[in-house]
């Protein structure tokens, strides 16, 4: 493969012979390889997560019939499938792909350095993550099957095998989750330290591309919020394994407590994955609008505000769980407040596009779809954030549809925008535009066709977590909506092989890409495509912010960060002011 050829040539001194497959791909400390490891692991897990949703949606639409490729679904298997779908998609797809994969690949490249601050810690991070993925996958094959207590794992259902019927799956799931968080903790330490200490000369804080800001802020939010959940997970593990009573009211425990510990992390988690996606969209938006990002500093400050407020909203998940209603009032207010900075970012992106010369390439289509779909997710969240309305909507398909209207744009639309945009940098080749657009329209239209019916079903009172609705004749009129959603899901799944084919075919046979095919400004496009080991043949120096597009009086409509100003020679830009100060 050409990538490796270039990598080897660029390495200059060949102190090592061919390191062999395992050494190269399992023991590499190169941030790009680690980013790719996270990406491919995440893609694999997405296929598993997609298969589980296929099985249980088929059961819901056509209850009691054998699902092709799986067989009959019983109630325990149904519980395991929805639990695995939720936890795999959130913890093993969205987080590794959006934060770990893009973070690892982009941060050193965009900051103009050769690797992360702690490369070995970075490798350890992926290895622990891989272990956690293997643990969670292996629960499909243990006695009792995979964990069946829903991805939120509320006790007492999750605390006792007598209730969840998965004696092995439950503790293994918790162990996998804890391992996964340790992996991301190590990764996050790397991201923040690298962004702090390894920026290219001349790159000030407000010359850092938005996506790097977002990943760093997301890492900080993650690390500030994950501790209580790990504490809760250890307590729950003790409850499951040695019979302590932390969450058992009979021995003085408190089951609501788990919900607080879980959602103290669980809600910031939404912003942990949202912020990188928003950052990816910012990069794509400016490049394909050929316009400076509208109000760069405002975006940074609103992202900061989002990160801060995200610590104050979690209890809106417990409005009807028996928390103090006065506290619910406070959390209603904070929940509605957090929509303000997010809305502000959306307006900023629309303002960025205004008057630009927009190119509707595949990445841009994904970025636009992100804004449109995420807005629907955000607006429907208002109803759920109000504690009064939530009494009605709680635990219906309305919640589920709202959640998916936020997470699908984040985890898939945002990822597709990023992947199609950085693919030439990652693999040195272009993806096919026609296939990309077919995949885009198939995915986005089908996605809406799945969840708009589920909004309607939820508003009609369709409860979640029910394995077979034929036992509820009063909800029978909603069956057509469930069937529409399932058929749309089949369409959505049918379009994903288009992407996979395009991805893997283009990786080897796509049109070769130049170093800067999109005419973008940020530093990763200063490196060759794909970047060699060590990233830059010559370490770049930064002269300006990342979004100088269509600057007046310039021939090109872009002005890369590392290109010296026209009237300064390449050799002496760094010393210029010092010399000037000398006389």
């Amino acid at each position: 493969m050409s990538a490796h050829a270039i990598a080897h040539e660029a390495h200059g001194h060949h102190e090592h012979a061919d390191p062999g497959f395992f050494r190269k791909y399992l023991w590499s400390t190169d941030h790009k390889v680690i980013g790719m490891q996270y990406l491919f692991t995440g893609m694999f897990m997405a296929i598993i997560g997609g298969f589980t949703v296929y099985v249980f949606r088929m059961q819901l639409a056509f209850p009691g019939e054998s699902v092709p490729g799986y067989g009959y679904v019983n109630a325990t298997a149904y519980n395991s499938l929805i639990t695995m779908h939720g936890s795999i998609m959130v913890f093993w797809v969205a987080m590794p792909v959006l934060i770990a994969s893009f973070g690892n690949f982009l941060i050193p490249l965009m900051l103009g350095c050769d690797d992360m601050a702690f490369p070995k810690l970075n490798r350890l991070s992926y290895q622990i993550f891989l272990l956690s993925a293997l643990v969670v996958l292996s629960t499909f094959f243990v006695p009792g099957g995979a964990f069946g207590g829903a991805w939120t794992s509320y006790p007492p259902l999750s605390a006792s095998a007598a209730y969840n019927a998965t004696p092995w799956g439950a503790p293994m799931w918790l162990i996998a989750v804890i391992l996964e968080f340790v992996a991301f903790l190590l990764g996050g330490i790397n991201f923040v330290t690298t962004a702090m200490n390894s920026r290219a000369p001349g790159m000030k804080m407000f010359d850092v591309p938005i996506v790097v800001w977002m990943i760093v802020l997301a890492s900080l939010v993650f690390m500030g919020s994950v501790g209580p959940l790990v504490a809760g997970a250890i307590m729950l593990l003790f409850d499951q394994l040695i019979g302590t009573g932390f969450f058992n009211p009979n021995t003085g425990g408190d089951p609501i407590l788990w919900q607080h510990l879980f959602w103290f992390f669980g809600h910031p988690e939404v912003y942990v994955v949202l912020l990188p996606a928003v950052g990816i969209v910012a990069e794509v938006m400016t490049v394909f609008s050929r316009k400076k990002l509208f109000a760069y500093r405002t975006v940074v400050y609103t992202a900061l505000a989002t990160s801060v407020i995200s610590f104050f909203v979690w209890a809106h998940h417990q409005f009807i769980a028996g928390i103090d209603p006065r506290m619910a009032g406070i959390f209603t207010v904070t929940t509605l407040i957090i929509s303000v900075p997010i809305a502000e970012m959306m307006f900023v992106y629309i303002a960025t596009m205004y008057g630009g010369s927009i190119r509707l390439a595949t990445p841009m289509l994904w970025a636009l779809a992100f804004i449109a779909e995420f807005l629907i997710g955000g607006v429907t969240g208002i109803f759920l954030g109000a504690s009064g309305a939530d009494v009605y909507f709680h635990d219906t398909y309305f919640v589920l549809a709202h959640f998916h209207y936020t997470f699908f744009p984040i985890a898939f639309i945002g990822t597709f925008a990023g992947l199609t945009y950085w693919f030439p940098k990652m693999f040195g080749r272009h993806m096919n535009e026609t296939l990309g657009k077919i995949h885009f329209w198939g995915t986005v239209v089908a996605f809406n066709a799945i969840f708009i019916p589920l909004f309607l079903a939820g508003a009609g009172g369709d409860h979640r977590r029910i394995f077979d609705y034929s036992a509820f004749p009063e909800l029978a009129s909603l069956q057509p909506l469930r069937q529409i959603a399932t058929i749309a899901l089949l369409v959505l799944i049918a379009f994903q092989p288009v992407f996979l084919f395009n991805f893997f075919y283009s990786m080897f046979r796509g049109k070769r890409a130049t170093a800067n095919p999109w005419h973008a400004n940020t530093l990763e496009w200063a490196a060759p495509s794909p970047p060699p080991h060590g990233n830059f043949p010559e370490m770049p120096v930064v002269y300006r912010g990342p979004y100088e597009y269509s600057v007046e009086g310039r021939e090109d409509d872009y002005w890369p960060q590392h290109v010296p100003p026209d009237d300064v020679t390449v050799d002496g830009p760094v010393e210029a002011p010092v010399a000037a100060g000398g006389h």
Partner: protein
Amino acid sequence: MHFPVTRAPHREIVPNSVLGMLIFVGTEVMFFAGMISAFTITRAGSLPLVWSLPAGLVLPAAETAVNTVALIASGILMFVADRQRRAGRSGRAAGLLLGATVLGALFVLLQGREWWGLLSQGVTMQSSTLGAFFYLIVGTHAVHAVVAIVALGVAWWRLRQGTLSSAFFLGAQTFWYFVVGIWPVIYLRVYF
């Protein structure tokens, strides 16, 4: 094709090891805060009889005060050792560092003896929720203390060999201050 090799940018405003360790410690503080808040909430909400230790036992707060003093003294020795090392007196620093390590180990041993006593009186994780929280929180702290003591021992060995890097020492030091600093909070919250 041979590219000119240039040095990667690196400006350690705050040393990598300190910044990384600070972020890690922040996460750890939240981890302990989660457990302590769980303890506080559960204690506030539960009825006295189902919560407390069996048969009128209480946690040995007075004996643990001695352990607490040993741990805090260890933290102070660590601080002085760092001062001495910065002043270039690494022989004296090594002595102080050894003192800090030994006092830390003493803390863990005394805690272990205390656990032994409690276990022999029938206080287990299953016997009551207070007991469960006690072993959970104090045990987690002890695990952290043991890891930190190993790191301090390594630092002491390397300091004597003259191979101690500042990065390692600063990282280990930050972590030890965390272990020492979080203990009084745990002590005052859990034992009383």
